[in-house]
């Protein structure tokens, strides 16, 4: 018998020395005693699961997939990936809940909601409607839904921007994500404004689907992979055919495209991975490394901004670029909040059974925000924004929105 076949897995789990540092930094283990923490759920449990799949523990569903365990691990064990891969391999294979379908099918729901945005936004804000969603779908009634835009970003782009964008000498492709398309087209417009100021036109991908992060966390793996394949094909055409870099404005979309596709969906992207990046990093490189210049308004009022590092941003290690961009803006004073999870984790915090955990995880961050004296919070993740705006008294904006609003 080849013993090694049964004792070696991907994701470095045999490097774990049981130091438990990951569990110290797990936001879920800190507030939910039903979750055994990343060491037990990840490398320890993996040993058992390799022996017999029956050892799969349904408590793995409590993992937020924030990857803070991986950032903390001194031994480079991909603890978060071990847990997510175990959910995919051993967890429930069919996900039939209407709630999970609605929460994770952002493209479908977004396409249906945007034409009727005024009605949908009013309806989901109504208490009776929220009570019904709570009872029928187990979406917590206390959760405030993000507003839908009246008309999508892509429709606007094709009608009003495409021709003008094509005229710029340099071009870049934009993976806008569901949030910009259905909820906040303004952020896409802000990006266009900044890139245009630097002499870049912005192109859409041939075909873009939701990156699939919500499908993965809701167990809809096959659909996630189908969408990922569409995205990878479009990205390859952009990078290899149209010779364009691909930029994004959402830290989680970026992380999913770059790292979750190969690690969780077994979709190789090595040939184009380095060409997919966050717009703030792209801008940092243009400005700091290549000497490009942005002109800012001199008359803008002073603004105190507190930056919140989203979990997937922390994992990529790229918050530095967003923070440095904010620091370049005259009149903006930046403080950096302690890097900790806000608790929403995409669709996790919408679910009735997770609402209390979600808010308990975010509590230290909310307290720090309230005490910060900042005028507003900046962050690169849309779901962190929803959580912060719902749970604190401060508005929360994308760094590029702040930057664009202060361009000369």
């Amino acid at each position, binding site marked *: 018998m080849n013993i090694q076949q049964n004792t070696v897995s991907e994701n470095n789990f045999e490097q774990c020395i049981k*130091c438990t540092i990951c569990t110290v930094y797990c936001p879920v283990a*800190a507030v939910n005693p039903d979750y055994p923490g990343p060491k037990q759920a990840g490398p320890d449990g993996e040993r058992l699961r390799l022996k017999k799949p029956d050892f799969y523990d349904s408590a793995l569903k409590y993992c937020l997939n924030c990857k803070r365990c991986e950032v903390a691990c001194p031994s480079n064990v991909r603890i978060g990936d071990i847990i997510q891969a175990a959910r995919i391999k051993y967890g429930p294979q069919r996900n039939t809940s209407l709630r999970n379908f609605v929460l994770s099918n952002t493209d479908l729901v977004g396409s249906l909601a945007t034409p009727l945005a005024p009605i949908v936004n009013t309806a989901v804000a109504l208490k009776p409607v929220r009570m019904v969603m709570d009872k029928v779908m187990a979406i917590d009634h206390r959760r405030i839904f993000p507003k839908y835009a009246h008309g999508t970003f892509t429709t606007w782009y094709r009608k009003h921007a495409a021709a003008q964008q094509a005229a710029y000498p340099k071009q870049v492709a934009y993976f806008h994500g569901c949030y910009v398309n259905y909820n906040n087209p303004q952020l896409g417009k802000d990006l266009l404004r900044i890139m245009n100021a630097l002499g870049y036109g912005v192109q859409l991908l041939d075909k873009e689907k939701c990156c699939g992060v919500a499908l993965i966390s809701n167990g809809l793996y096959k659909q996630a992979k189908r969408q990922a394949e569409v995205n990878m094909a479009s990205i390859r055409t952009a990078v290899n055919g149209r010779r364009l870099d691909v930029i994004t404005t959402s830290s989680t979309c970026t992380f999913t495209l770059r790292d979750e596709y190969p690690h969780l969906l077994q979709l190789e992207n090595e040939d184009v991975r380095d060409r997919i990046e966050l717009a703030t990093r792209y801008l940092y490189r243009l400005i*700091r490394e290549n000497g490009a210049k942005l002109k800012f308004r001199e008359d803008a009022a002073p603004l105190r901004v507190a930056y919140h590092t989203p979990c997937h941003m922390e994992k990529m290690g790229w918050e530095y670029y967003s923070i440095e961009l904010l620091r370049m803006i005259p009149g903006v004073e930046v403080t950096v909040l302690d890097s900790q999870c806000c608790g929403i984790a995409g669709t996790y915090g919408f679910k009735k059974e997770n609402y209390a955990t979600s808010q308990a995880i975010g509590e230290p961050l909310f307290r720090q925000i309230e005490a910060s004296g900042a005028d507003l919070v900046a962050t690169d993740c849309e779901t962190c924004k929803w959580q912060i705006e719902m749970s604190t008294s401060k508005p929360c904006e994308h760094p590029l929105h702040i930057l664009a609003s202060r361009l000369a």
Partner: protein
Amino acid sequence: MKFDTVIIGGGLAGLSCGIRLAEAGRRCAIVSQGQSAIHFSSGSFDLLGQLPDGTPVEDPAEGIAALEKCAPEHPYARIGAQACERYAEAARKLLCEAGIPVSGSPRRNHYRITPLGMAKPTWLTIDGYLTTPSPEVLPFRSVCIVNVEGFLDFYPEFIAEAFRRHGVSCRFASVNSPDLENIRRNPSEMRSANIARVFDHEQNLDRLAARIREAARECEAVILPAIIGINRSDAFEVLKAKVDLPLYLLPTLPPSIPGIKAQQALQHRFRALGGEYFLGDSVLSAEVEKNRVKSIRTVNHGDIPFEAEAFVLASGSFFSRGLIATPDRIVEPVFGADTDFVPNRTEWYTEHFFDRHNYEAFGIRTDRSLKLLKEGSVMENLYGIGAGLSGFHPVQEGCGAGVSLISALFVADRILNSLKS
């Protein structure tokens, strides 16, 4: 990304070097591959407990002077006894200013009590932990040793056995509560950090204090494992006020609450001084030109390099993979720098676990100013500090924390002086 100094490694050495440089107004970045071994801290920092031949050291400054003769390759001997004493005092101040309240003197060791009840010589101990001026005498004749039911990393019976040898009478008390029952749902995860979160809540502290008062009625003092104050820094003070008996903490097996707090305090201090801390990233390669490091590249930052005037290697020893042992040599993986080791592998270790093993003193080779060497040539702007240095036995000599702190401050001074000249 451009910095004045880039430090590779965010443990005790890297952080204290970064703090000193940032205090002097330098722009520093620390790149750290995950959290550091500070998380395993005993709550004490050793300077020198034994000479290489096993002679116990009472006065570390005097012991360091002796090292100059008997162990000239020891990092302390290279830095010099007088300078070491000066840096030791500066290190104590640095820790206190970072919010880690420590006491002790480089002229006289005190004794810390280990999780198994043994007395070990040490230099600085965080306030609240049990120490004694002499290994034979404890500051009480009777003590109540309190533990949390089901806690895996603290052993009152061992401690009592050691204490009884010094004529101290011991009794035990265990603590339970509904919140503790809650975390016991995952019995294998009944660790200090999870327990300390329970005692961040006032009502659980009240319950603990009541249980201690009741159990320790006829005792002179109370011993408690370090399971207090993970998010709430005043928890120990609050508990002490409620108990009304001398209350001492003892370290637990890892993860260590004083260690977690110390790591976070140092990180905060570094950031508050304007330092940039890049956690969870690994260095892939370095660009070196004429014995000068120009830049390093990391996994997370890819094509955007870290550029700096000076670089400090504080990547630690084997645990953190600052050093890697292959079958026949010791490799420093970032720069491929020269290392000190004996070539014959059979001489790396003996068969007795508690022996002084040769491998413990293997590490990066440096010159007198702790600059690294590569193929025999000095790297002009690359310094080595901390556990990865060669020439010392941190466990047998009891000098690991001291070497980290003192080499860090020594190198920070070298970097600041080189800028002046």
